[in-house]
């Protein structure tokens, strides 16, 4: 008989091993699913996980798709460290794309060096503004930020849809719901030849470093962590909960907004009705798989990016439905949450423990 037993102290090793366990369990599940679907698992795995990044172009795609995931994941990790349950990164991303893209459309064919920085700034501000709404509502009316941030995602998406179907539609675009293409000065510079990797990767890595510095070195980062680990201790120390909520919502809004503007100023190059395959939602998993740590978020972003690429490849080459990407994402989070129990608990074999009551000794009865 095996039994769960509480550890005297949370295991630091399991904190790191748990995401790896989850990834392995995800692969095993994938194996079973592929087999049940009648695909050769070995070939399916190759198509899903190896082939997409076999070429330098493919590897570039991995980095390209990882950038928005990392940008969104960094902000969400900050929120979750502070016990603020923001799940609206997709909305912040969309609004960042709208404001950043709006600046690009307003600048037209400008060749100014300031065009791109201005777009990035607008994107960050747009995302932050969208993050400010749940923050204000929570602080003012005690609303639940989970619901508010989620609902704001759909509002942002409908706003974008309205814009590209209406006022911002390209008149020369054959009625397609999309804006004019951005000018050369309004696109992110390419980093690596023969690939689509652009400046957003640098941005993501720099922000990961900044996020690490903020969490590890600053008092503001410490305050957030206290609020997340022990809210009563934060109140006792006099750390304002409202200020923390504002801070993390604005920061996570801004970084997701950057992800949005980088998408439209990068691989897309214009505003469209749909600009993200759910990066903002996948980033929730990225944040948790990455243990809410900036370095972990970078690695988690790469893993999640691979799942996106593999899912696309599986659609094209194995004739599997696109849901396979979502399946892997969901299964990964599921196993992660399950494996996390081993941080605080361990398995013990109760069969080896001595039975409590040995044979009675004769000297005892009656006094």
């Amino acid at each position, binding site marked *: 008989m095996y039994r769960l037993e509480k550890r005297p102290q949370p295991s630091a090793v399991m904190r790191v091993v748990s995401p790896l366990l989850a990834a392995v369990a995800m692969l095993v599940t994938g194996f079973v699913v592929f087999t049940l679907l009648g695909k050769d698992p070995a070939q399916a795995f190759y198509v899903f996980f190896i082939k997409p990044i076999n070429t330098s172009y493919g590897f570039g795609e991995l980095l390209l798709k990882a950038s928005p995931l990392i940008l969104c994941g960094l902000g969400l990790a900050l929120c979750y460290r502070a016990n603020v349950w923001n799940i609206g990164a997709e909305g912040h991303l969309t609004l960042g794309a709208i404001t950043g893209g709006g600046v690009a459309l307003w600048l037209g064919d400008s060749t100014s060096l300031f065009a791109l920085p201005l777009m990035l700034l607008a994107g960050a501000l747009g995302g932050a503004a969208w993050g400010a709404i749940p923050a204000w509502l929570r602080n003012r009316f005690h609303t639940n930020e989970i619901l508010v941030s989620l609902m704001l995602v759909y509002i942002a998406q409908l706003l974008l849809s309205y814009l590209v179907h209406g006022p911002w539609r390209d008149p020369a675009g054959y009625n397609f719901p999309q804006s004019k293409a951005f000018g050369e000065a309004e696109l992110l510079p390419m980093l690596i030849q023969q690939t689509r990797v652009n400046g957003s990767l640098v941005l993501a890595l720099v922000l990961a470093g900044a996020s690490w510095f903020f969490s590890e070195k600053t008092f503001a980062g410490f305050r957030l962590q206290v609020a997340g680990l022990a809210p*009563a*201790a934060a109140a006792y120390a006099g750390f304002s909960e409202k200020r923390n909520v504002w801070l993390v919502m604005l920061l996570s809004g801004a970084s997701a907004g950057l992800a949005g503007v980088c998408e439209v100023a990068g691989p897309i190059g214009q505003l469209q009705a749909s600009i993200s395959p759910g990066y903002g939602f996948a980033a929730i998993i990225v944040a948790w798989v990455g243990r809410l740590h900036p370095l972990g978020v970078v690695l988690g972003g790469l893993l999640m990016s691979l799942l996106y690429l593999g899912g696309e490849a599986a659609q094209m080459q194995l004739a599997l439905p696109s849901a396979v990407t979502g399946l892997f994402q969901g299964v990964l989070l599921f196993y992660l949450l399950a494996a996390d129990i081993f941080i605080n608990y361990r398995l013990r074999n109760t069969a080896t423990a001595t039975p409590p009551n040995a044979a009675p000794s004769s000297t005892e009865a009656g006094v």
Partner: protein
Amino acid sequence: MTGVISPRLALTDISKRYPGVVANDGISLKVFPGEIHALLGENGAGKSTLMKIVYGVTKPDAGTILWENRYQNINSPAEARRLGIGMVFQHFSLFETLTVAENIALALDRRIKPVLLAEQIRDVSVRYGLPIDPRRLVHSMSVGERQRVEIVRCLLQTPKLLIMDEPTSVLTPQAVLTLFETLRRLSAEGCSILYISHKLDEIRALCDTATVLRGGRVSGRAIPAKESNQSLARMMIGADLPECRLMENTIGEVRIGIQRLSLRTEDPFGTTLKDINLAVHSGEIVGIAGVSGNGQKELLAALSGETIVAQPQSVLIDGHPAGRLNPAQRRHLGLSFVPEERLGRGAVPPMSLSYNALLTGSRRGMLRSGIVRKAIMRAFARNVIDLFKVKCNQEYSAASSLSGGNLQKYIVGRETLLQPRAIIVAQPTWGVDVGASMLIRQALIDLRNRGVAVLVISEELEELFMISDRIAVLAQGRLSQPVLLSDTSVEQIGQWMSGQFDTIESEREENELVPA
């Protein structure tokens, strides 16, 4: 005891180890019918673990339990109750929104018609001098009354053995006497009682025999009536009870002022504070006695700044109106604060001791333009650890890895080294062993001697009588006039604890014009 009578309960060589600690190590004891048997020991000596084993909550790793001359595995509390073992826990498990009868019905193993049950409750409560109304809602009851519910709940099962875990820690001195009468009556009827406590006076007054535990082992057996407090203490802690002494001290200006503080609680089960006035001067310790749940939590939060008060003048710190300031701002005025809950409020459990220094010590040079200066933070933590003899691996140890007493020493030490002008301490030695208690009390006295204003809120009357210059009582949200220790007695304070200090209130009645 004659040779004919066999013990009702006999434990032999009971051992229980938890990861990292041996809670019980080869403990044996016998309890005879009608005997009131004390289990005496400090916090962490293994008393509660042993009783949980008897009550079937935990299983021993080794050892045997002999119940009425038969070897018995007690696998669950339900089984223990079937055998006739009842237990009243230190922390009650009652639903506040239900009535007494409903609470009791939930805990019974057999079903009884509500009408019959109410009748039985009345019967039992009258017979044993524990008056309670079965129809009353629990949230309206005092802690003493809630304890009666728990006891009646056990008595309904006509137990042969009743286990009482630190029953008096929540009672006024008068209520303690009532409880003792009830227990004596039960024992006269043949019910055995296992009485867990670390209060020597009580044990000497009540118990027939005592088993003393220290560090998970039996360190002595005694007949308490034949022992002195000193000899029992030597068995319990292996040394004489240390003493604290208050020397004459000059008193200075008011450092903590509470003026007409009224505060309506938002918690439906909280206590509303009514017109509280108090002045704590530099160089004195003022103790506030009272049973918890009488406004202690609310008063502390209003003083620390965790609750903001409408009138800035209601709370004065070193002369500054502070009612509307948050805890960090109040700390800046020179206030230190040791809360009642250590883990999760006074300290962040998974964080290291040095980061826990940063929690309230950030103003003591630990920051440079918002960046944490870790070397200074660690040095501060090391200083606390050395000065207050905190047992831990290093300043890197997580707060949650420390025992309650050690963590409390760390928190008191931290708040002391912040060089406060005034300090507020809630339950300074709650769940802390004797040695650490004395160190903490001495630290508070040292602060007083250095001219700090000290306000202590404690449930332990003994402690307040040991360290206070003046003492006041908080009952039902009202605070009595503080009195000099030499002008009062345990009996008087005990009486005040049940809220009987009207005369003092009415003197001030004409001034009561401040809206709540």
